[in-house]
């Protein structure tokens, strides 16, 4: 994390570094306000970047802003079909009690990516319901 901070101090418009630090905090559930600001700045620099859109959705999820988070995951998935985005989106849908939709998204991803290791985690979450 210190390396990322150093990189940002040298290059404050480095969207990837801003996103990486913001996402790391969001993932650790710490510094959520700062994480949100960093990710917002990254998003203003790269508004159609799937990874940053996913981070924005994830930090909003961590902040309990579930309804706002959904649009970011949907947009991220339009650009990149990635297991991490799918995993985050399924977790959000379950928080929103949209179990059927969560299953649908999971199965849609599964049809093309049956060997994805992240799927095990998603399946576990869905099985726990």
């Amino acid at each position, binding site marked *: 994390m210190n390396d990322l901070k150093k990189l940002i101090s040298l290059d404050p418009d480095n969207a990837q*570094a801003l996103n990486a630090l913001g996402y790391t905090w969001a993932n650790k559930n710490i510094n959520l306000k700062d994480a949100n600001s960093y990710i917002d700045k990254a998003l203003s620099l790269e508004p*159609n970047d*799937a990874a940053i859109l996913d981070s924005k959705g994830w930090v909003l999820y961590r902040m309990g802003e579930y309804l706002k988070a959904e649009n970011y995951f949907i947009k991220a*998935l*339009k650009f990149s079909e990635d297991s991490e985005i799918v995993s985050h989106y399924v977790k959000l849908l379950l928080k929103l009690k949209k179990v059927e939709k969560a299953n649908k998204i999971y199965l*849609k991803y599964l049809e*093309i990516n049956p060997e994805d290791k992240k799927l095990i985690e998603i399946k576990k979450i869905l099985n726990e319901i």
Partner: protein
Amino acid sequence: MKYKVILLSFIFIGLTGCANLEVSKKNNSAGEIIYKKNNFYKKYKATGVIKFKLKEDKISSRFNYKKNNDSETIDFLDFFNNTIIAFEVTPGVIKIKNAKKNINSQALKEIINRPIFKNIIVNFSGILSGNIKDKDSTISYKNGLYEKIKTSEYEIDYKTYNEMLLPTHLEVNFSKILFSIKISNWELKK
């Protein structure tokens, strides 16, 4: 998601790996192996997902590909089945059949606008099936199916095949644009 910081290193490793590719054909142990060959069909449908790795961007699109003799269509769709762009290909001609008014992905725009993208579209059927005329070299699996094909423009690494001997996962290095194709469904027609 923070994967992109390390993505460049992976691309570098990938490119270095490809540069050291051995291009001689593997020996097959006679007597033990049933020799197979890649099947080339004139009419078929294939659906799957294509994932591009370009600079720091990782973008993907689902596709529906249809071949009917010399006529081909390729529809690129997002995860929610909305068409991003669709092409019609007849020998020597690529026509845009359908496109979102604003393709709001800079990375995808960059890919589509590159001349190399035309080559991918024109060669799509060959890439999927291994039916490529001007091969520089090939490596085959022990059962005879293509493992790698190298041409002057691109390299294809056939990772997996299904029980019908049709490829289901391939990695392509097309003039330093790396992409992977996963095919979830093949539909062969007479």
